[in-house]
């Protein structure tokens, strides 16, 4: 009840803040880069593998985690900036709202926007793949997995970056954490499995995309609870 009111307000607040633009830009950027890749050297790429669809999906998947992490870092920091800008927390939290619900509403906005990005990515991947003529046997299930597993595995990252953005008064720390994330996500194979920024790439020793998803959601829940408690108890200065 209260959450739906809060969500209604949050959707109104993100107007003109560029969040929807970023939501579109992420997946379109990934598809765009893939288009450049295939546009320049399609024959070479098709010669690399027997299974053209699988090879194509791997190429898309190489870009997805990077776009996702960038998206998480920027979206969470924009969501926090809506209040931080004029210190509107002292107004917003003096309204009859539970702080936990406020925190959840911010999380849901970030998660839903990124889910929309994932949907656009799925459609874009399928449509461009079909125009490339990679074969009639379209691997629908794989397309969905490649588009949505990274989102599932990213829940922990959303929770972590949101926690940082909403509670840290030091923007330098928030930005630094974001930079660490973006660098880490470029080199997932060199990182141990426990590194949170590795999870969206679905690369793990277990070699099973589900494991990244499960660990992402599990750790996400813990990080969300910790961040929410911190946010609820914090003095608003």
């Amino acid at each position, binding site marked *: 009840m209260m959450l739906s*009111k*809060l969500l*209604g*307000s949050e959707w*109104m*607040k993100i*107007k*003109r*803040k560029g969040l929807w633009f970023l939501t579109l830009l992420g997946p379109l950027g990934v598809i765009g880069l893939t288009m450049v890749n295939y546009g320049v050297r399609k024959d070479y790429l098709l010669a690399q593998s027997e299974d053209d669809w699988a090879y194509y999906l791997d190429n898309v998947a190489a870009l997805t985690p990077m776009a996702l992490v960038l998206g998480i870092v920027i979206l969470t920091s924009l969501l926090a900036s*809506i209040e931080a*800008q*004029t*210190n*509107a*927390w*002292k*107004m*917003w*939290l*003096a*309204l*009859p*709202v*539970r702080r936990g619900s406020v925190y959840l509403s911010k999380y849901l906005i970030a998660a839903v926007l990124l889910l929309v990005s994932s949907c656009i990515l799925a459609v874009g991947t399928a449509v461009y793949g079909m125009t490339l003529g990679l074969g009639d046997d379209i691997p629908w299930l794989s397309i969905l997995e490649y588009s949505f597993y990274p989102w599932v595995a990213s829940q922990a990252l959303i929770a972590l970056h949101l926690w940082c953005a909403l509670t840290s008064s030091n923007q330098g720390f928030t930005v630094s954490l974001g930079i660490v994330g973006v660098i880490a996500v470029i080199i997932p194979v060199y990182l141990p499995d426990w590194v949170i920024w590795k999870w969206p790439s679905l690369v793990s020793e277990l070699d099973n995309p589900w494991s990244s998803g499960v660990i992402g959601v599990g750790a996400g829940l813990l990080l969300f609870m910790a961040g929410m408690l911190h946010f609820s*108890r914090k*003095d*608003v*200065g």
Partner: protein
Amino acid sequence: MSIIVQTEQLTKTFQKQYAVDHIDMTIREGEIYGFLGPNGAGKTTTIRMLLGLMKPSSGRIKVLGKRLNTHKLEILRQVGSLVENPSYYPHLTAYENLNVIRQIVGVPPVRVTEVLELVRLTEAAHRKVKGFSLGMKQRLGIAAALLHQPKLLILDEPTNGLDPSGIIEIRELIKSLPQKYGMTVLISSHLLSEIDQIATSVGVVSHGKLIYQDSITNMRKLANSSIHIQCNDPEQAAVALHRLELAVELGANKLVLHQCSDRAVADAVKLLVHQGMDIYRVEEHKQSLERIFLDMTGGVSL
């Protein structure tokens, strides 16, 4: 009259420094309570605790008869606030800003139009707040605080940054709230003149302590007056005036009479003239409220 706000030994420390030091504040229904103190005295910290934005280090808060830490949402539903510099969403219009809050407090959309009218922002309603002057932002903040017709309105330095006509306008608006809507108002300021013109009760805070709390009429009584008489022989005059049983004090070349009625002054002057003394000046010196609070707050100007 029922008590709207009651704090008991309310205390907040930051790194062992007392920002708010055992404050017992009482605000009664229908009052405009002026919360007065120099910058950094602990006004805003107290207000933040009243709104549940900060947790007290110790002490208790009751608002509208309920404990704040157990009935926070219930209380906040009946409280409107404007804390320090105005908070707003600069990328949204004035109307959208209020609409975002309206969703939470659950009042009909027509209230947005009403409060915009009340603070005279109707014409600017559909402009982005980014381009507003400080005074307009402040008025928007007051509109937001009034949106759900709260029983208790908490305004922290509401006239900051307003031009003189804006100050008068807001002052009249605040003054009308208790009678019109039955609101109780807590208004903080570092300006004595501001509180003097608007409040019905006063609390003075200095270095985190509430050093004075009473009605404004009682506060005005603190402003004692004295009569200064200059004449050719003050010493002899003092001896003569002792016969009238007046509290006379011998100053540098003058006599100072404390707390005397018009009658007593007339008698004193008549006596001195009859004694053949030359009287140069008879002046009334009124100790200003400003001076009194200066003494109270240890020299920090209000």
